[in-house]
């Protein structure tokens, strides 16, 4: 079972496209085609095999392969993680919007914008280490 790491990212769907901000890396992604529906389904723990089977039945095997590839891409980006079925919902869980599959298939796409991530790398702000109080670089911790 996989699901969106809702503690890591914020997302919103606008005019059929889902905008996703990764609050750790700063990458902004825009999900297009059927990708917003896949994202919506993954807001709760989902069996990817079952999801792919549903897509294959509706649109055919090539579409199912594209959806699997999308999920793999999101997983590689750290936005999707393993989730136990029936696991208690975390405080970050976002309820699905119940987006419906469109009549006509549209290839899922992910546009990625790096501007924010570059700003974050250029000018990082650190958090105070709760255990140490006064901030120190990691190498000075000992």
């Amino acid at each position, binding site marked *: 079972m996989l699901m969106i790491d809702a503690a890591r990212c*914020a997302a*919103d769907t*606008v*005019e059929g*496209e889902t*905008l996703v*901000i990764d*609050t750790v890396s*700063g990458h*902004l992604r*825009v999900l297009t085609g059927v990708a917003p529906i896949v994202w919506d389904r993954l807001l709760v723990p989902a069996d990817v095999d079952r999801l792919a089977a549903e897509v294959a039945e509706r649109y055919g095997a090539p579409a199912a392969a594209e959806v699997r590839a999308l999920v793999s891409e999101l997983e590689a980006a750290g936005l999707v993680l393993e989730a136990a079925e029936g696991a208690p919902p975390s405080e970050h869980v976002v309820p699905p919007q119940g987006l419906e599959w469109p009549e006509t298939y549209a290839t899922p796409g992910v546009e990625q*914008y790096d*501007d*924010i991530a570059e*700003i*974050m790398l*250029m*000018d*990082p*702000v*650190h*958090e*105070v*280490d*709760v*255990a*140490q*109080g*006064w*901030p*120190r*670089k990691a190498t*000075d911790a000992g």
Partner: protein
Amino acid sequence: VTGSTSSTGSPTAPDPDRVDAGPAFAAAAARDGARSVHLRVAGRSMRLEATGDLLDALQPAFGHLVQDTPPPLGALSFRAWEHDQHRHPLWDPEAPAAYRTLAGGIVARGELHATPHLEAYRPGIGIELWGPPGALHHADHTLRPAGRSTFTWADGVGLRLLHAAAVEHDGTAALLVGPSGAGKTTTAIACAERGAGQLGDDTCLVDVGARVVHSLYATSAANPDTLGRSQGGTGPVLGEAATGKVVVPLAARGALRTEAPITALVVLRSEGDSPADGPRPLAVLPTSKALFASTLLPGVAHDRLEGWFADNLRLARTVPAFEVTRGWDLDRVVAQVREAIERGRRQLEAP
């Protein structure tokens, strides 16, 4: 110095949320003299206190916010102090260059022309800007004095600091957004020279829920060639920023406003000339993308990305947006910005 016992578990480490340099500031003020003024920033009172002649150096940035009355008790403190930065109890070259404190403050070290400085915002203590004699008279400090600290304070009181210009026409305002080079400063200058009120042409404080823009700094950094194209020429110059841009006071080019309701988002495109048929309405999605591409300021909101993300979307959904292509027919560009503000106002007033 107080608060030498950390609340975070270490018995010896000072707690950056509690270390208070107030007594040291008072000693410096007694030696070098200090003056203070009452500022109103987005409806909040701030007591700006500076040693020596530093208040004069900060006047172009904050002069439009000065009140005739003394600041009330409880006003946010903003202390600007020219003194050796290593004497400040928060100075620690081994600490990260910028770090967030547990109480939601920020401490940041910086360096301009090989001269270090320190700025901090701690809830309950206020904003501080420290640097050796002469350092804080640099143009970058006139442009955004204690910028990161002020922005962190603003974030804590629900105000979003956006990288955008804002101009006012007949009582309501447009936010001018676009990436660097899109023409925010050029457009803002052109609007101001043709009678628009100015709220800022680099950074603006926005109350997203109330759809109100507040002015913060009345200074601007512009490319010298941009100033050369303006009607008034270069005008007074406060200095050169580290980026090579020229820092100028907004007051020299037109009227300043301290706040205005936002009735339009104007997304500037730098290609081609403005079409004759007026500003093009923009849907929520392209407006959102334009806001995401341009409104984040380095060191400001990137550790609060969720709020910035949500506020940008809220603006895109609640404020009418228009695209204006910034050609060199500046009369036409200004007319389109005005038209966007008026059309947006009518849209928002419609039942």
